[in-house]
């Protein structure tokens, strides 16, 4: 296992992404700040539309044309990328900053062989010979567990299974020894048995090579098994951030608690209904004030329409909620007890 050093690979302060729509700008990401250190895995978790993929694209400078990015600080290995030239970003992206996408079939070009897709960026960034690039590709395919790597280089993406394609994506991302790897739902399109193998491989390589990884997922099971730290996003905002152990031991934000109670768990009583979060995610178009979760929150009060404070319990566990840290547990307990009482009509 690589040593956790304090070297901060990516330091982001107040990242916002707006998407132009006919009804006005949609605030997809709002004032998001995060840091990832060398050898660390940060998971960004949330449901569809919470802004997690836009965060990834915003960090990599790959946003669609309709989107605009504002960022106070975007530092990669100490270098300011918030105002860097497109040439500088191009020199880093695919080189020291790499990305893995959800669906390897659409991320890989169907008209080129695996070999040419793997070697082209390496030759571009490093200026090495075709033979050297080919040797590096074979080395990495072997590292991600692909047998007869030399033959695979001549194959096209459609000749590989989903799990193999995702391994090729991982090998391709590692070609130029990235310091930062952003993986957007890397295992979501795969079957469970393949998902476990891909995540295991990704985690091992990340630790071995000391890469800072941002892994984006909607699956709290993946988070629990892979992450060192977790950021929970809701409606474009980070609502809670903590070490994995701390987050799963005591979730502070009502949304995080709700999300965990929704998951059917082995051994949980079958007669008991699953927890649910009533309602749906609010529209992110127009002026947004207060807590965006308040319409669905069982603990909401008038204060939730105002400015929401960020609490910190001193062990790098932060959450954005009006409820005081000491009262949230007892308030939640009160609600649960009330829900368990039989209805009055019976």
């Amino acid at each position: 296992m690589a040593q956790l050093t304090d070297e901060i690979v990516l330091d982001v302060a107040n990242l916002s992404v707006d998407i132009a729509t006919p009804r006005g700008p949609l605030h997809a990401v709002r004032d998001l700040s995060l840091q990832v250190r060398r050898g660390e895995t940060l998971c960004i978790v949330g449901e569809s539309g919470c802004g997690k993929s836009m965060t990834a694209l915003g960090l990599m400078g790959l946003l669609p044309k309709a989107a605009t990015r504002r960022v106070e600080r975007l530092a990669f290995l100490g270098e300011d990328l918030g105002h860097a030239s497109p040439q500088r970003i191009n020199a880093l992206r695919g080189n020291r900053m790499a990305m893995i996408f959800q669906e390897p079939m659409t991320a890989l070009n169907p008209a080129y062989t695996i070999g040419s897709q793997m070697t082209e960026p390496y030759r571009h960034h490093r200026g090495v010979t075709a033979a050297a690039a080919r040797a590096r590709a074979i080395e990495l395919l072997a590292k991600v567990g692909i047998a007869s790597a030399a033959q695979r280089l001549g194959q096209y993406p459609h000749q590989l299974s989903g799990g193999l394609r995702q391994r090729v994506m991982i090998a391709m991302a590692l070609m130029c020894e990235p310091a930062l790897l952003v993986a957007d739902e890397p295992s979501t399109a795969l079957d469970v048995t393949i998902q476990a193998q891909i995540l295991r491989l990704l985690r091992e390589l990340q630790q071995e090579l000391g890469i800072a990884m941002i892994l984006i997922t909607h699956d709290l099971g993946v988070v629990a098994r892979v992450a060192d730290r977790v950021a929970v996003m809701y409606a474009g905002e980070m609502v809670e951030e903590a070490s994995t152990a701390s987050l799963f031991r005591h979730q502070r934000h009502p949304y995080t608690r709700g999300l965990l109670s929704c998951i059917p768990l082995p051994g949980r009583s079958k007669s008991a209904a699953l927890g649910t979060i009533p309602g749906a995610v609010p529209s992110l178009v127009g002026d947004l004030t207060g807590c965006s979760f308040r319409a669905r929150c069982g603990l909401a009060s008038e204060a939730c329409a105002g400015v929401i404070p960020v609490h910190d319990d001193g062990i790098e566990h932060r959450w954005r909620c009006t409820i005081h840290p000491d009262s949230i547990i007892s308030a939640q307990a009160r609600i649960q007890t009330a829900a368990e009482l039989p209805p009055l009509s019976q």
Partner: protein
Amino acid sequence: MKQPALFSAQGLTCSFNLGGGFMRPARTLHAVNGVDLTLERGEVLGIVGESGCGKSTLARMLLGLLPPTGGQIFLDGKDIHTLDRKAVARRIQPVFQDPYSSLNPRRSIAAIVALPLEVHGIGTAATRRTQAIDMLERVGLPARFAGSTPRQLSGGQRQRVAIARALVMRPEIVICDEPTSALDVSVQAQILNLLADLRREFNLTYVFISHNLGVVEHVATRVAVMYLGRVVELADTARLFARPRHPYTQALLASVLTPEPGLGIPDTGLGLEFPDPLNQPSGCPFHPRCAQRLPTCSSAAPRLITSPAGDHVACLLHPNSHSEPTS
């Protein structure tokens, strides 16, 4: 004499002929390969398996949407081929995975839910509408949604419409094919709770197809595990999850990432080769990936054997799987 099961299938097979092209031979894809199932009234039969295992093809055959190439389906002991198509549809209804493509985008919610009644010629337009709105309310959509079109609704609301449409005929059996796979986890929980409530209220029997083992464990009373078109294990839910007997079921359960930090990512030892239904291995279909395989597994196909408790498993590691079961 034993009462026939509510719904059963025997030796159900479905193969597709893939037409050959220029310089390419025609090939046969065995999507479902001799599946036997019985469904008793009131139970929830979960069907799990990975992509390409034939679970959706099985669902389409059970619904009568796809003619089997072999085997029979019985409703109350009668072959459904001998029964009237509409009479069968009245008793068996589907809920599909994607509520975006399974609802007509140009019709109102009330019209979508009333359509089965219209097809079967039940009641007048006015009574059909009342019944539809009543059913929408039971699935948690207030009457004010009746005039909306599907595009005005969220994914969870659309799936409620699909459920209302399935239930408006008051069927006995509902076949749910991945009903929550397209939904977020908080919405999935709402739909699973709704399906559980409706089952009690209307005394329904479900076939519940999913790739999500946590969901299946939560809803099913019995679970069938499919691999390459075959049922490799079928058992009571609690027993299957506590003591899986087939190596594939064991690997499948071990792969599930539960939200328990500190456990790490399991090593299933399944290797990289994903099963290809076009190129099925000889003997046991799972043997190329199986860590516990015996020398005979590549030549002898195991039979599905029944334990005294009524559970089934098809694996040569279990005695009797290779010989005629002793009675």
